[in-house]
């Protein structure tokens, strides 16, 4: 659930102020489009070792959202796995946002692949909604990413009223455009490329399954009490919804009626949720700006936290000495922390200063930055303890990382993640650190362990793993180099080993286990590997793994 009313007033009467007509552009499967993977190729995006997005090709193989990454290997050899990379997706989405910004100075970015804007001004300027839609579609069609191939056109469920489809114009394109009252209905409409008439939100969304409003767990609860479509929520009185489901219920009630938007705007607290940070002298470097505003942002967020509210949607605007201005709205489904806000600031500035298409970068330094909170929630989703009552618990950590990153650059700061594989090197991978890796909820892994990989190194795991591997030598008592025969046996019994780069001269072997032959990726000519692995324990108590590949021994890992 995203938006919730400020202050927890679940019992106030539903406000029925008209919502702004909103246009939403949504790309289906952005992570794949951004990497130019066609929909008919089988590919999935993996996050936390689970599938979070997939192409039509992958769906045909029987893969579905939420599958464990390790079970995928059994479904196909051709399946491409992409690690979830929010930063990359956001950065590549910049070109679409830039086009949207050429129609409206303030664009709201919902997530990578989905953005939108209020059409009130643009529609008047470009000669009406229809003509604006034409122009937006034309402009977006020019992007190479929009030519992702025909995606089967989905139709809204039977019974939806008050709209017309644009799909004939978008047949060969990879994006959808929706126009409706308020961002929520427009987002739903964009998946069908529909224009919903003003005032017809309720009629449009009532036949939809409730899955479009809330996430899985809550769908279960509602379907257990017999509510399956949005329309059925309309039949339930508001107090009952609130009584049974609390704030979620109240929000559902609003969404089902197509009511959505800036509830906070209607209140008098607005000025407290806004901060202007002056930059004196004017500054051009995005890095310097994010440093300069850091402290003020922290204070601002602390003040919000003390009020018990957490921002979900913020507007960031800048103005330069020569009165050029840019503003953009960022929204998120989890509360935005100061660190996230700073990264939005940085991305927005970098996009502005290095435009991709025909726009001019600002000509002078930035004199102020405005941050305005548009929507809040009262559920923090983050744990606060007594000692850090006012700040995000991980903020100290995040700030330290940010400083370290400025020192060594992006590529050297990493986090280890488990993945599937046989060798100690393959079982873990170092991902470039990015904000949402630490922000991700600590989910409880299912108690069932993943099945073991056949051929993996047994038992204790080595605490030093060399990547790349280090050359070593293995000789018999007489000084003859030890090899592995085609049938997978050692050619003579090894007695000594040496690793020159670690300064190890001939050390005596107490016991050698193996070899375990392995034939990896035998179906792929380019990447196939044949290797044999042994486990060695030396007379003086050093245990290690060695690998024979292409007639050479390599030190793979030490049990340090």
């Amino acid at each position, binding site marked *: 659930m995203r938006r919730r009313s400020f202050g927890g007033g679940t019992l106030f009467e539903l406000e029925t102020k008209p919502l702004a007509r909103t246009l939403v552009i949504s790309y289906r499967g952005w992570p794949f489009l951004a990497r130019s993977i066609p929909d008919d190729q089988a590919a999935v995006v993996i996050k936390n070792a689970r599938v979070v997005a997939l192409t039509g090709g992958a769906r045909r193989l029987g893969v579905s959202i939420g599958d464990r990454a390790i079970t995928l290997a059994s479904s196909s050899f051709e399946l491409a796995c992409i690690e979830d990379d929010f930063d990359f997706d956001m950065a590549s989405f910049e070109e679409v946002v830039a086009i949207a910004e050429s129609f409206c100075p303030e664009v709201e970015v919902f997530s990578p692949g989905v953005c939108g804007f209020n059409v009130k001004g643009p529609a008047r300027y470009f000669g009406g909604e229809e003509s604006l839609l034409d122009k937006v579609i034309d402009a977006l069609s020019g992007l190479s990413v929009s030519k992702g191939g025909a995606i089967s056109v989905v139709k809204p469920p039977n019974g939806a009223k008050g709209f017309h489809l644009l799909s004939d114009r978008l047949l060969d394109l990879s994006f959808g455009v929706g126009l409706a009252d308020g961002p929520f209905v427009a987002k739903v409409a964009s998946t069908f490329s529909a224009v919903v008439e003003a005032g017809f939100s309720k009629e449009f969304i009532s036949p939809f399954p409730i899955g479009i409003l809330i996430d899985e767990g809550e769908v279960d609860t509602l379907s257990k009490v017999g509510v399956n479509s949005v329309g059925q929520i309309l039949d339930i009185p508001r107090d009952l919804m609130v009584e049974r489901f609390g704030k979620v219920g109240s929000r559902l009630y609003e969404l089902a009626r197509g009511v959505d938007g800036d509830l906070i705007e209607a209140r008098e607290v607005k000025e407290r949720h806004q901060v202007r940070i002056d930059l004196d002298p004017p500054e051009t470097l995005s890095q310097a700006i994010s440093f300069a505003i850091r402290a003020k942002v922290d204070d601002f967020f602390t003040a919000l936290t*003390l009020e*018990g509210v957490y921002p979900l949607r913020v507007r960031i605007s800048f103005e330069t000495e020569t009165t050029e201005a840019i503003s953009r709205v960022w929204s998120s489904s989890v509360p935005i922390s100061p660190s996230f806000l700073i990264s939005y600031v940085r991305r927005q500035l970098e996009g502005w200063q290095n435009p991709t298409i025909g726009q001019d970068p600002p000509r002078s330094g930035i004199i102020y930055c405005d941050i305005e909170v548009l929507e809040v929630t009262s559920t923090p989703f983050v744990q606060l303890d*007594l*000692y850090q*009552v*006012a700040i995000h618990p*991980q903020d*100290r*950590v995040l*700030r*330290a*990382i940010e*400083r*370290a990153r400025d*020192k*060594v650059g992006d590529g*050297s*700061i*990493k*986090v*280890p*993640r*488990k993945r599937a594989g046989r060798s*100690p090197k393959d*079982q*873990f991978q*170092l991902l470039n*650190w990015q904000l949402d*890796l*630490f922000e*991700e909820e*600590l989910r409880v892994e299912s108690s069932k362990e993943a099945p073991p990989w056949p051929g993996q190194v*047994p*038992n*204790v*795991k*080595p*605490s*030093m*793993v*060399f*990547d790349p591997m280090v050359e070593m030598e293995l000789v018999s008592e007489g000084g003859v180099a030890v090899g592995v025969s085609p049938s997978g046996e050692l050619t003579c019994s090894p007695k000594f080993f040496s690793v020159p780069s*670690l*300064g*190890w001269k001939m050390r005596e072997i*107490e*016991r050698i*286990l193996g070899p375990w032959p392995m034939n990896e990726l035998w179906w792929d000519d380019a990447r196939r590997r044949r290797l044999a692995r042994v*486990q060695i*324990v*030396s007379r*003086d*108590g*050093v*245990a*290690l793994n060695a690998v024979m590949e292409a007639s050479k021994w390599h030190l793979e*890992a*030490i*049990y*340090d």
Partner: protein
Amino acid sequence: MKVTNLTKLQAVVEPASLLMDQRIDVLGHLKDLLPGGSLKRGSVGVVYGDFGSGATSMVFSLVSQAISEGSFVGLVGLHSWGFGAAADMGIDLRRLLVVECGSNKAIEVSSLLLDGFDIVVLALDRSIDYKSSRSLANRARVSKSILLYLYSGISSLAHLPYGADFSIWTKASRWELLGSAPISNRSLVVQADSAKWPSVRSKSVVGL
């Protein structure tokens, strides 16, 4: 009490912290190796030993209890970390940050990370100069974080880094070899020293 009053409350109680907040617990069988039986916040420690003698495992097991209690740990420097072993020792990899960089950068980065991380492990291949080690020790003391030096592949240290409260030398490891079964158990011969102790302590640690 209203939420806003909590900040006032915090200001009042802040100077007094509980004894448990000044220390970070370690696993039971490592208590004998540390002065006071736990890692003291703001202190500096050294772990060293030849490759294969168990120094890396020693570091992993020193921080594993802290991580399970919610601490974040930074691993800085060029070291071939084996995360499989870390995960087996109960380390939640989501609370580990790895910074790969050469010694000079590593020292600077450690000093930055000490501000936010509870424990920073600095892996070095040569001894650190007096000036840098002194500023790192000060940073650790001010930020109430713990700095652990890891010297892997070094079996004797001419002098400890400035401000080291304890040092652990993994002298040797002995693997239990049972027929043709893969290795599974070993005992480490460890020598621990602290300025607070009259003499060094030698101990055998099983299960690392």
